[in-house]
């Protein structure tokens, strides 16, 4: 690229900083572009001018580790709306069951969830955790992680609090059974797991 113009070099430097996840030291830019230090300095000056604050959506920054592109603060609110939005893909059956167990029985341990569902529920628990619907709430006295639902869970289900959960008896196939909900879920789960 030694024959490229300063403008073309500035374009290349912009592209490199766009791609790099971390700040790039001047020396690495010189090596990647195969130019002299003077040529690179000139290109950086040109780029700094084009990306001066207020001109574009991204700005050039010189930080501790080298050079980096960053977004202009003008986009902050829109960025939060676009990117900090919770992901809400449809729940799979396994996720819905796991979430129902945590919601109605909380706090509840992972082994209990597995016993009620009759299958190990690791991946459902993990996904629900990543999506911020459930969180760890300490450990049971046997050392198992216990879970509860989060404020985001209430928000995404349109609940003003846990007392707002639909009445379990409405969906209960045998509402006449007087035993405790937890006990009955565990009993049904063990029947399911039996060969």
């Amino acid at each position, binding site marked *: 690229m030694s024959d490229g113009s300063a403008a073309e070099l500035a374009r290349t430097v912009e*592209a490199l900083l*766009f*791609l*790099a*996840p971390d700040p790039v030291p001047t020396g690495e830019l010189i090596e990647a572009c195969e130019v002299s230090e003077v040529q690179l300095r000139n290109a950086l000056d040109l780029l700094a001018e084009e990306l001066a604050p207020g001109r574009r959506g991204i700005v050039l920054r010189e930080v501790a580790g080298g050079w980096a592109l960053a977004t202009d603060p003008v986009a902050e609110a829109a*960025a*939060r*709306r676009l*990117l*900090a*939005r*919770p992901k*809400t893909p449809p*729940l799979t*059956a396994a996720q*819905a*069951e796991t*979430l*129902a*167990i945590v*919601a*109605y029985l909380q706090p509840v341990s992972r082994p209990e969830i597995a016993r*009620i*569902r009759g299958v190990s529920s690791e991946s459902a628990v993990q996904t629900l955790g990543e999506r*911020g619907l459930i969180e760890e709430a300490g450990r049971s006295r046997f050392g198992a992680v216990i879970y509860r639902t989060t*404020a*985001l869970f209430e*928000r*995404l*289900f*349109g*609940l003003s609090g846990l007392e*707002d*959960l*639909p*009445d*379990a008896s*409405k*969906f*209960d*196939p*045998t509402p006449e059974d007087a035993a405790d909900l937890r006990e*009955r*879920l565990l009993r*049904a*789960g063990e*029947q*399911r797991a*039996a060969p």
Partner: protein
Amino acid sequence: MRTADLELDLDVFAGPFDLLLAIVLREEISLLEVELGDVVVAYVEHLEEEGELDLEAATEFLVLVAALLELKSRLMLPTEEEPELDLGPEEAADELLARMLEYRRYRDAGAELSRRLEREAPYLHRAAPLPAELRRVSIEAARQAYDPDRLGVALGDLLSAPPTLDTSHIRPTVSLERRLEVVRALLQRASRIDFDEQFGSEDRLTQAVTIFALLELHKKGEATWSQRSNFGPIEVSGQRTATGGQTAKARRES
């Protein structure tokens, strides 16, 4: 068994079955030179030795061999002997031609895609993690996305007593001989049967082995079958000259 693993040793072709239709479509050998009966027999024998059925591979084999059978039979049928079939060398040539053109279309589309990938390669996209302040989900931005009743329904399912034991995963053994008997018996009672109607409620393994039984009957001249469109109904017709079938059977067993 993977379809590609079936090795053939025919007069005009030795190698994996996998390659056979490919070289026919690429015009490297003439379909007319290939003894397809031997291909099917080789596959059925191999299947019997293996004792188990990889459904995906079996479907692939069926699709390929059925295409070969259809094309070849049409290419060879002299129109004057079977006027009711209304299929002569002209139609056969058209059929094979259509298959070749279809193949070429995707071969050329593939080449175009390759060029496109090459052309697009210099455009690089950014793959950097989000800045820390955007990585945390903001509760304020959250809106209701789920119906709380979904949780109630899931809870109700979990409270239900388990349904009767599901045994569908236990594979029944299905013998080709038995399926041959079943199809022969059906064809003695009716000259035409609809595959889905007769076997649609059977499990997939039984259906697949029944298809092999049909291939065997086709090879012996005891039955023909047709399917007008992909995934359409399969109609099976018995051939009235049952003696032909007997002879073929006797020949194979001798």
